[in-house]
């Protein structure tokens, strides 16, 4: 076995009202060429105007990644000809990225792992090409969409580490509202660099780049495939067949395929864009951005453990997805007991969400206010725990609130002591044999008797109350 060395270039489309250099809407459209300003098609005389929100978000991300932030914001041109690049260059940050030399610590399979960030920079996306049998269409909707590209040092050593890191970054993007990271809308893409080396070696092996891998699942497969491919060649004494090249991941076969070799590498002739005056990043701006960084996943997790006494496991489940975490916090804000809310969410609500890939927690009919209401009904002993579960199911089926369900099915717990007492008496008189058995040591008969009381009350008696009353009378 060899040691794998992996570096990632992770591109992520940002959320913003308009594109990064034009005033066209940054959104998703099923129709081609709907969201386009003249600049996005490179019309003569059009000029870039920097989107300040994107700049602030990029600085925020650089801060979160513990990067050094430059004194000035500048953009550079990456020059090459391609049909999807209308200006003939991409505006990016080559010489002075918004963040450099960052570092984050993540947890991989229970162990801490330090990941070094080479840089993070703000740039524009290209148009997209749709290829048909004998023609290709250019869709400029994507042209000029803001992208953040995060480049790690070659410091990851397994697919697990790579994916865990990307999940960590994705959570930050979600928690800061920088990106939805929606794979289905093509919002994330990664270039994956993989090499292998002998375990005791200090010299890096030959680096192979796999471009434009567009889901976490494919990234994992890419890494695993490349490690296997390179290791096989190395162990067979054919390591010279591993060459510095660019490959692509093929979804159908799960393998990588040669695209171009190092010799074909393009000289992008980077130079600083003269249309965008360099912009001073002041301390005031940095302070303002810092102040507004929201609480991130790992911080929320710690809070849930220390303030709400949730288990590490539950806290992790809740913060894994920001929408779930927000849902949980909304329940708590509405007065629900944190532990109960956590239980309802992690068992029942998430079970609903997990039924389909197409939905998120926001699509589930039951809102945090209803969970809070349900918890309150149980806490106030208006309904039993078991009834609660029934209410939950009925809410989903009938799209009613807990109070409405309880009312509709007349489920409220009997608080009339006399009535409960008379039901207990009734059960005792009808079940002499059972009482006998109980006294002879079959303690589980008590549960049977409680069940009979519940049945007679049509589930509305408080089972704890019924049990106490039964015990009292059997003595």
């Amino acid at each position, binding site marked *: 076995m060899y040691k794998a060395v992996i570096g990632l270039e992770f591109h992520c489309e940002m959320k913003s009202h308009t594109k990064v250099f034009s005033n066209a809407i940054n959104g998703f459209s099923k129709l081609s060429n709907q969201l386009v300003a*003249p600049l996005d*098609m*490179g*019309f*003569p*005389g*059009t*000029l*870039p*105007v*920097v989107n300040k929100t994107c700049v602030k978000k990029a600085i925020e991300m650089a801060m979160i990644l513990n990067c050094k932030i430059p004194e000035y914001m500048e953009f550079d*041109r990456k*020059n090459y*000809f*391609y*049909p999807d690049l*209308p*200006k*003939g*260059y991409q505006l990016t940050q080559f010489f002075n990225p918004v963040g450099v030399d960052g570092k984050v610590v993540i947890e991989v399979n229970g162990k801490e792992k330090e990941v070094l960030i080479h840089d993070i920079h703000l740039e524009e996306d290209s148009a997209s090409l749709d290829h048909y049998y004998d023609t*290709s269409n*250019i869709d400029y909707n994507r042209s000029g969409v803001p992208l953040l590209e995060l480049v790690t040092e070659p410091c990851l050593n397994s697919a697990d580490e790579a994916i865990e890191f990307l999940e960590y970054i994705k959570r930050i993007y979600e928690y800061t509202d920088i990106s939805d990271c929606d794979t289905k809308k093509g919002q994330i893409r990664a270039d994956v660099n993989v090499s292998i080396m002998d375990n005791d070696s200090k010299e890096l092996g030959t680096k192979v780049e796999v471009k434009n891998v567009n889901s976490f699942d494919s990234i994992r497969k890419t890494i695993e495939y490349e490690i296997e491919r390179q290791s096989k060649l190395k162990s067979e004494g054919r390591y010279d067949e591993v060459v510095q090249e660019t490959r692509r991941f093929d979804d159908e076969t799960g393998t990588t395929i040669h695209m171009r070799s190092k010799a074909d590498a393009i*000289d992008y*002739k980077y*130079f600083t*864009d*003269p*249309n*965008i*005056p360099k912009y001073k990043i002041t301390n005031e701006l940095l302070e303002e951005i810092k102040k507004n960084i929201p609480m991130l996943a790992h911080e929320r997790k710690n809070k849930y453990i220390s303030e709400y006494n949730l288990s590490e496991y539950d806290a992790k489940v809740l913060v894994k997805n920001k929408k779930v975490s927000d849902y949980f916090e909304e329940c708590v804000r509405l007065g629900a007991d944190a532990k109960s809310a956590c239980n309802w969410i992690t068992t029942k609500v998430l079970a609903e969400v997990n039924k389909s890939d197409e939905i998120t927690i926001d699509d589930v009919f039951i809102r945090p206010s209803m969970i809070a209401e349900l918890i309150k009904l149980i806490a106030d002993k208006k309904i039993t725990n078991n009834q609660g579960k029934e209410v939950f199911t009925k809410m989903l089926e009938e799209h009613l609130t807990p109070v409405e369900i309880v009312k509709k099915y007349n489920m409220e717990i009997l608080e009339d002591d006399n009535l409960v007492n008379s039901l207990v008496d009734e059960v005792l008189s009808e079940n002499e044999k059972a009482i006998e058995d109980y006294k002879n040591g079959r303690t589980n008969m008590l549960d049977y008797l409680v069940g009979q009381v519940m049945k007679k009350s049509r589930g509305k008696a408080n089972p704890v109350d019924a049990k106490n009353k039964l015990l009292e009378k059997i003595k």
Partner: protein
Amino acid sequence: MIGKSILELHDELKNGKVTSNELVNESLKACHEIQDKTNSFVTIIDDAKGSEVTDDLLSGIPYGIKDIFSTKDILSTGSSNTLNNYVPFFDATCVANLKKHGAVGVAKTVLDELGMGGTGTTGHTGIVHNPWNLERQTAGSSAGSAASVACGVYPYALGSDTGDSIRKPAAYCGIVGYKPTYGMISRFGMFQFASSLDTVGVLTRNVEDAAIAVDGMKGLDENDMTTWDSSSINLFKSLNKDVKGKKLFYIENVCDINNYSNPSEELKEHLNNFKETIKRCEELGISVSKVNIDSKLLNALYSTYVVISCAEATSNMANLTGISFGPGGEGKSPDEMIKDHRTKGFSPLIKRRFVIGSYVLQRENQEKFFLNAKRVRRLIVNKMNELFKEYDAMIAPVGTGPAKYIDDNKNVHDKETRVLEELLQIGNFGGYPSITIPNGFVNNLPVGVNITGKVKDDVSVLNIAYALESTMNYKNQLAREEN
């Protein structure tokens, strides 16, 4: 209207002596009349209509637009075959601003292809001829604008200036050419040549008109991040001939005939005439000093300009692929189509500049050429800024004499005169306000003098030119075919 100034035409419009429609029609007719001889126009906008006359000085008055500016629904070619069918769907900001003032564009004027040239001979519709002598160049790139204004078909025409593209043709055509401070007028909608040097400006026959026209175009523009707020400056209202006490300098290295080993008769006359102009300045109470600048720095001017402008141009013009606009190329793949479009569309001069631009930006060359050129630019600007601490402006002869013959090859200047020939590029390096006015004749052809001043101090530059203009007889002069 032939030969009349904006102020004169405004008076006539206000007094009802003439209507805007009459002016526009007269201007269109005059455009057609000079087209055969000068070839000034890519498009004469025959369906242009007069506009409402208001108290705005520009209202109702026709003007010309260099074909490097986008004009909504009107062909805008940049004088290039790569854009020979391009009709923009938006106006350049400067054109839109003039429209708001009621100005009426009547013609799109020929330029050196995409602004890259200084002869007026490389536009896709052919050579522009100097109305003073049809065998001579107008210089460029604002060639058609200079020729048509010199013929008096309208009081002003838009130009753009990356090296001296307004100020050199103005001199060759005996008119005024004003390049304001960089960023005073938005570049939005002007086809980019070299973004860090490109400046929108105007060609007129007197300094007042230049001030009025730029007042009508300037201002902060949300579409151009390099614009700045000049709302507190009104150039026309600030015009003042009292320039007593102003301080000028000239660069002795290149302005003194004794520094040339084998000067032509034209250069001798030109520099002699420049001396006369300096005397006029002194009579106005302006002090004029001579300074010497390290000749190493001066000799680096031209190559610095070539490297920076070609590098920016090769990238700026990479959008001309023929894919979403322009005539487009043939081919089986997008690469082939782009290649065909550009191979057929660009003239050899442009291609050569693209090769230079690509070469100096290449990874292995960038440090030596492009980055060093940027450093030299900084050194030149630092030197100028140092001088501007002491002086209000620089005065300089424009070029090395009058208009060259059309078949003269600009690229083989003799080394000795090259610095003087390219001196005005300093104005673009620093983004300085710079104006050329006519200051006499050499060989019966007009020559010009230039005033270049501090960034954002356009008022001083214009006032010096305004005062100097009043001491000479060339204000409002029209081209006369003498030979």
